[in-house]
C-alpha cells in the first residue's frame, strides 16, 4: 500500500487519481501511525512553506523521517520535495527535513515568478525514479521557490538559473515538478516509483 500524506493544505485529488490510474493500492492519510503500515509514502505538497508547520504539530514530520530511515521509498512532490531540504526562504522559522543540503530560494528577478508551465529536465543516468525518461522531456512546474543543485540532483531544470527538478538518494526521492500533471512522462515516473 502507498500512503499519500494529507497535511490539510491544497488539493490531493490529482495525485490520488494518477496512482489510481496506475492501479496502485493507495491510502490518503493524515494519521502519522498509518505510515508504519505503508510500503511506500508519497508526500505531495502545494502552497506555502508555512503550511508545513502542521507536520511538526501532528507528529507527521517525525513519522515521515522515521519511515524514511527504515528504507521505505519516500517521494516528495513540489513543496514535499522542498521539505526534504534544510528549509526555505519562504518561511525561515520552519525547518525542513535536512535530508538534502541547502535552502530553497526565490527565482532571480530576471524571470517571472512563479515558474509556471512545461519545462525540460535533463535527467542523469542511473536515476531509479527517472528510468526511461528521455533527455529533455517536458514536465509541468508551478512554484515560486526552488531547491539548489546538489550532488543528489538527478534532473536539473533551467529557469533564470539551474535548480533541482529531481533529487534522489537511496530510498528518498523528490520532484519539484508535478508528475501527476505531466502527461505520459509524469505517469511513467510515478509508475517507476510504484515498481521500486
Amino acid at each position, binding site marked *: 500500500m502507498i500512503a499519500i500524506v494529507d497535511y490539510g493544505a491544497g488539493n490531493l*485529488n490529482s495525485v490520488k487519481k494518477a496512482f489510481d490510474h496506475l492501479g496502485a493500492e493507495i491510502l490518503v492519510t493524515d494519521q502519522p501511525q498509518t505510515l508504519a503500515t505503508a510500503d511506500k509514502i508519497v508526500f505531495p505538497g502545494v*502552497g506555502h512553506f508555512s503550511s508545513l508547520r502542521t507536520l511538526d504539530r501532528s507528529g507527521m514530520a517525525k513519522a515521515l523521517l522515521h519511515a524514511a530511515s527504515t528504507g521505505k521509498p519516500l517521494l516528495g512532490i513540489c513543496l514535499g520535495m522542498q521539505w526534504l531540504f534544510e528549509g526555505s526562504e519562504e518561511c525561515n522559522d520552519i525547518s525542513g527535513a535536512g535530508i538534502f543540503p541547502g535552502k530553497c530560494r526565490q527565482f532571480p528577478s530576471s524571470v*517571472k515568478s*512563479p515558474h509556471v508551465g512545461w519545462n525540460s529536465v535533463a535527467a542523469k543516468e542511473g536515476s531509479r525514479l527517472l528510468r526511461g525518461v528521455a533527455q529533455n522531456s517536458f514536465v*509541468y512546474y508551478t512554484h515560486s521557490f526552488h531547491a539548489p543543485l546538489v550532488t543528489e540532483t538527478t534532473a536539473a531544470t533551467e529557469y533564470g538559473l539551474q535548480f533541482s527538478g529531481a533529487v534522489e538518494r537511496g530510498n528518498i526521492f523528490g520532484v519539484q515538478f508535478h508528475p501527476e500533471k*505531466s502527461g505520459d512522462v509524469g505517469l511513467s515516473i510515478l509508475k517507476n516509483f510504484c515498481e521500486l
Partner: protein
Amino acid sequence: MLTKRIIACLDMDGGRVVKGVRFKNLRDAGDPAECAAAHARSGADEIVLLDITATSGNRNTLLEAVRSTAHSLFVPFTVGGGIRQLDDAAAVFDAGADKIAINSAAVREPALIGAIAGRFGSQAVVVAIDARSTGDRFEVYISGGRVPTGRDAVDWAREATACGAGEILLTSMDRDGTQSGFDCELVRAVAEAVSIPVIASGGAGSARDFIEVFREGRADAALAASIFHFGLENIGELKSELSDAGIPVRWPC
C-alpha cells in the same frame, strides 16, 4: 527552457461542448471528457473548461462534467464559470480541477481571490479578465461581456495579482471569435504590468497569430477554442510550426 503553452478551451453548455465540434457521430459530439482527452493527445498543454451558461441550476451538471473530464486527464485542468464563492471553488476542486478561473465574482469581490488562494494556493487561481478597447485604454467587462465596469484592464490585472492570483486569462472581446489574431497591444500591456503568467485569448486564427502574441504580446500562454474544434489547426501541427519559428514549445510531447 520554459515553453510557451498552448491551451485548448472547451465552452460548455448543459454538459455539452458547444462550439463547433464536427464529429460525425452526434451522440458523442461535444462530450467534454472526450474532447479534452482528444486535445491532450494531440498536444494541448492544458485544458480549460468554461461553463458558459453557469446558472446556479446546472451546477451539478458542471461538477459531473468536471469529474468525468478530470478522470483520465493528466495535464493541468482549469474550470471556470459561475464560481461565486469559496464553496463553489472547493466543489470544483473536489471534482478534479487543478485550477479555477474566476471573472465577475473577482471584480465584485476581490477578496475572493485571496480566500481561494489561501486555501488552495495561488497556483490554483486564474483570474479571467474580459476587456474591450475604448480607444486609449482597455475596459473590463463582466457577466459574460454584457456589463462594462469602467475599470482599466491593466489596473485590474495588477490588483488581482496583488490579491493572490496565480495567472491572468486575458480575453480580448474585440477579437473573440473573429480569428483575426490576438490583441497583442492588450496582451503586452498586461503582461508587462504583472509578475504572473498571462494567458492570451480571443482571436486565434493561424499559427502566425500565436507567433505574434508570444513575440509581440509577450504572452506566456495562448488559448483557443474554435480553431481547434473546427480542425483549422491541429495542435500538433501548430506546435511544429511554432517550433520551426523558434518559439519554445513542448513538442514532440
